């Protein structure tokens, strides 16, 4: 708990320090990390607590991003309309995809969630009215009113931070509720939970929908952050990236998604922006292949810390 409080205070102070130092870029970068942290945290609910290997989470992030962007493009700039709409659309999509996918198990579940996400990817690719494969550029970020200008990087940062903390708190509450207990029990031993009289399917579906809705909110934030959205946000590589974040950070750990997003995006940034001369001599193009470095880190984590980085830190399983 003290660790969480310390981290939170650090996150609150961060943009002010950066602004003072004149590194506004890092405020924007941190917002991006936190948005991915929200997306990865929502996937962690499905993957880590629900034990469902969903390989199509980008569909929900993407649906949220597109719904929010289309509304802004059509002149509905208010975040109070755009973001709830994104959440609702992603929840509805998750309900449809989940209702069908959850009739399967194991590898079939992985494949069917992947297939649905790819269908969504091709769907937005063909939406010529909203940029098709070139994506959709927005004139501005969504508007929050209340005298807050989301165009300001520091304000945007604090809004994202608030959403992230709310998401983490909600995850914490849900995991320790009756619903969460059942969910974890299903992960541990699905057949037995059914034998105890629990309609397993309904619980899994609801978990899937909650996570999809949260993913949609992350998508809406992502679109606002970059003032741009393109179909790649729904690509399966994006689903894979979110999955890697969760595994890296800690499957089934409250902070897993946050740590995974920070480490992965941080690593990519460091590799791409800080050239190592000695490495460049051996492998001239290594900076274009940041994912190789990420892959090596992932390999080390999976082999030596199967509980992810959060597991290394806490040394105690958050069941």
């Amino acid at each position, binding site marked *: 708990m003290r660790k969480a409080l310390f981290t939170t205070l650090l996150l609150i102070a961060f943009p002010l320090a950066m602004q003072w130092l004149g590194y506004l870029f890092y405020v924007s970068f941190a917002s991006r990390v936190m948005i991915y942290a929200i997306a990865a945290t929502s996937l962690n609910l499905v993957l880590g607590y629900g034990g469902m290997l969903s390989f199509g989470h980008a569909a929900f992030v993407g649906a949220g991003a597109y719904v929010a962007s289309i509304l802004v493009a059509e002149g509905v700039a208010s975040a109070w309309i755009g973001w709830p709409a994104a959440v609702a659309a992603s929840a509805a999509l998750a309900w449809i995809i989940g209702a069908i996918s959850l009739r399967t198990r194991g590898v079939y579940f992985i494949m069917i969630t992947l297939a649905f996400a790819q269908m969504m990817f091709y769907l937005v690719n063909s939406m010529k009215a909203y940029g098709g494969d070139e994506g959709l550029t927005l004139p501005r970020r969504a508007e929050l009113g209340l005298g807050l200008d989301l165009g300001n990087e520091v304000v945007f940062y604090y809004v994202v931070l608030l959403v992230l903390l709310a998401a983490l708190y909600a995850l914490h*509450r*849900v995991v*320790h*509720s*009756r*619903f*969460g*207990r*059942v969910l974890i*029990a299903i992960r*541990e*031993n699905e*057949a*037995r*939970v*059914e*034998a*105890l*009289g*629990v*309609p*397993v399917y309904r*619980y899994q579906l*609801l978990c899937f929908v909650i996570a999809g809705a949260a993913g949609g909110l992350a998508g809406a934030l992502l679109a606002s952050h970059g003032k741009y959205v393109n179909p790649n946000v729904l690509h399966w590589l994006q689903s894979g990236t979110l999955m890697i974040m969760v595994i890296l950070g800690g499957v089934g750990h409250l902070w897993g998604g946050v740590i995974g997003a920070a480490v992965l995006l941080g690593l990519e940034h460091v590799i791409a922006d800080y050239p190592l001369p000695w490495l460049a001599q051996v492998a001239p193009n290594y900076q274009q292949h940041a994912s190789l470095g990420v892959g090596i880190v992932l390999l080390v984590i999976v082999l030596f810390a199967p509980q992810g980085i959060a597991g290394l830190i806490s040394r105690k*399983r958050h*069941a």
Partner: protein
Amino acid sequence: MLELTSVTKRFGGVVATDDVALEVAQGEVHALIGPNGAGKTTLIGQISGSLRTDTGTIRFMEKEVTALRQHERVALGLARSYQITSIFKRFTVLENLALAVQARSGSSFSFWRPVAAEAALFDEARMVSREIGLAERLEVTAGNLAHGEQRALEVGLALATRPRLVLLDEPMAGMGPEESLRMIALIERIRAGVTVLLVEHDMDAVFRLADRITVLVNGRVIATGRPEAIRADPQVRRAYLGDELAA
């Protein structure tokens, strides 16, 4: 209480249970015995609802349940335990039982309130723990229990759903003589409150506990009756009991 009529299950070409008729009366301990591969566990699966029944009907408490799903049958008071221990190994004993109580006590669609604050769940779980003799082991992680204790918890999970009829699939599997005695005592204790359909290979236990016995061989019922009658039945002796009881 439970009534099976020509219940059949095929796996591909293999007939696992074949035209089974079985009646379990309220308040009795009814044992289901037979050699390995006779279809006992398949039949338990069909009664509990984890396996679909190909043909035939299953009635429970005067109600046809053949088409009901497993969790719906549990809600009617029909619970099972497993031959292969199937507890939540990472949960403590108390958490295991509280989960089962929670499952029985209606909806778990509660997302905000910490489950740990629900005293009623844990009180009830403690009560069950006393029934199964694990009251002193509440905070132990289930995976760290001794084999006999895990078997007791296995039965406890089924009991915590407060069933009217409990299907116990080889509760004494893998137990030493002392542990078996404890399990027999446990079943003696619970029989006052719940009807038991007991699958078991331990014939001492079966003949000590059972009011009636049904013998299953190759998926078919070859005999049903009181223990003395079963012991004396020449067909049963030939097919199953053999020289075990001849002496």
